[in-house]
């Protein structure tokens, strides 16, 4: 990773968190923590509230109870734009880029909070990290392939050197090889360079391979948590999320 993109992560903590829409809680009594240099993943079946949980951490969905802190700052129900200023980079599962804007313009919007003179250098740093984007700076984001689009989405949040990266199913709709590269090369790489990474992922096996800690969400609550190595010894977890087969050994990262 380029030196300019390395960031010292902050601890993100949610305590007793309930969140949802129209005062109806989708997730309840959630306690999660993500620390610098670690990848923390959240897995669970469809409809278990994974995306709602992430959205509540970044100010998109209202927190009904409990607290969210980033470092020493209480960010509970803070406006999304203020949370971005603190250094939380959020990549949603869908609608993660601005389709009518060019690749360059998407990156410029990613650096909206930077001084104008800093933006060209930041774009260079992002392009060094995602060189595939170099040749498509004037192409509209809506015309990119799934993998390119996801790289742009991540490049957009990297423009601000976020301390905490919150990623909602970054490998959704990607080809297996691209998904593996994204998880093992890029996302693990962010954490290895000091960032805090909180990840929701449908591909449980792949998520476990790059994670330091994993939470299992079911029915809007945390039903299980632990180091991947321990979870892979849990028969109920293996049956539900790893297809009952033998799990590959966790990454030595």
């Amino acid at each position, binding site marked *: 990773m380029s030196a300019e993109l390395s960031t010292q992560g902050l601890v993100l903590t949610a305590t007793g968190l309930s969140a949802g829409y129209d005062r109806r809680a989708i997730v309840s009594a959630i306690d999660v923590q993500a620390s610098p240099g670690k990848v923390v993943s959240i897995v669970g079946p469809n409809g278990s509230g994974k995306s709602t949980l992430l959205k509540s951490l970044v100010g998109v969905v209202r927190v009904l109870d409990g607290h969210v802190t980033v470092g020493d700052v209480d960010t509970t129900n803070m406006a999304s734009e203020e949370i971005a200023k603190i250094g939380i980079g959020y990549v*949603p599962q869908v609608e993660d*880029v601005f*389709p*009518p*804007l060019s690749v360059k313009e998407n990156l410029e*919007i990613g650096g909206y909070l930077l001084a104008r003179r800093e933006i060209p250098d930041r774009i260079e740093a992002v392009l060094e990290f995602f060189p595939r984007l170099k040749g498509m700076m004037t192409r509209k984001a809506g015309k990119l392939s799934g993998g390119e689009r996801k790289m742009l989405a991540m490049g957009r*949040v990297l423009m601000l050197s976020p301390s905490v990266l919150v990623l909602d199913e970054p490998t959704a709709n990607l080809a297996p090889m691209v998904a593996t590269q994204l998880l093992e090369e890029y996302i693990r790489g962010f954490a290895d360079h000091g960032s805090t990474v909180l990840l929701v992922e449908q591909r449980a096996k792949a998520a476990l391979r790059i994670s330091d800690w994993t939470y299992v969400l079911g029915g809007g609550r945390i039903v299980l948590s632990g180091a991947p190595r321990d979870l892979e010894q849990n028969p109920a977890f293996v049956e539900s999320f790893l297809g009952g087969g033998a799990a590959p050994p966790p990454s030595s990262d």
Partner: protein
Amino acid sequence: MSSFGFGLMTAAVLAIATVGFTMQFAVTNVLNLAYGSIMINSAFVAYYANAHGVTAWASLPFGVATGAAASWALNRFVFTPFQRRNPAPITVVIVALGVDLIGTFGLQAIVGGSYVSYHQSQGHEYHIVGMFLSGLQLIILAICAVVLVTIHWLLRYTRLGKAMRATSANPNLARNSGVKTQFIISTTWLISGALCGLAGVVFAMNTGVFEATSAQLYIVLLLAAMFLGGPGEPYGAMFGALVIGLSTEISAAYVNPQYKEVIAFVALLGMLTFRPYGIFGSEKTL
């Protein structure tokens, strides 16, 4: 060729109005049917400045300021409170229609139903490629060109314009990127309102005489031009304004001029039926 000249003038005024209208729709998602009433109110404010000794051109900023202030206030005190309640889109349209009627007939109650005009010379007449255009009309065409180039520059090359386009495309993602979308939306209302006020004054200058209800049917031309080019597409709006402006005026040479707005109606219905995203648009984007 004289119809072409009339059409060009109608298109120029319409282009200023439609670009503001569609830009505001793209960023705020409000179909502001009160646009025509703000135009004519702005024209009247400029008229009163003109009547009190200010030259017609110097009174133009009064109209622009009126349009900007009225649009900003309309968003701040009417549309924003309504939108907080997550209303059905039709509710917002009905509110806008109500504001339009209040704006138009409230103005009529104040200024009466008489026709007025600016104290302004039409200037020399010029013969250009078969068209007879007055000095005033050439200035209006120049204003239109400057406005369109400025809007292009704003949207493509400025931080504000890019933030407006990002907010239009995906407001949640824009906020997650640190864009203060409420500020961007308020600024968009100010800019589109300024264009509305400008369009109102040049519309009144171009028609020569006007009264409180003169712009009441203008919303049909605006909607036709916007849907022809593509809702939320400023470049589509320029194209739509040119086509609607020229076609309505040229058709007046062949059919009863009283029916010239019918062309706009037909274009509007045709686009809504067969291609609601317009010629340039594929989705509501700036």
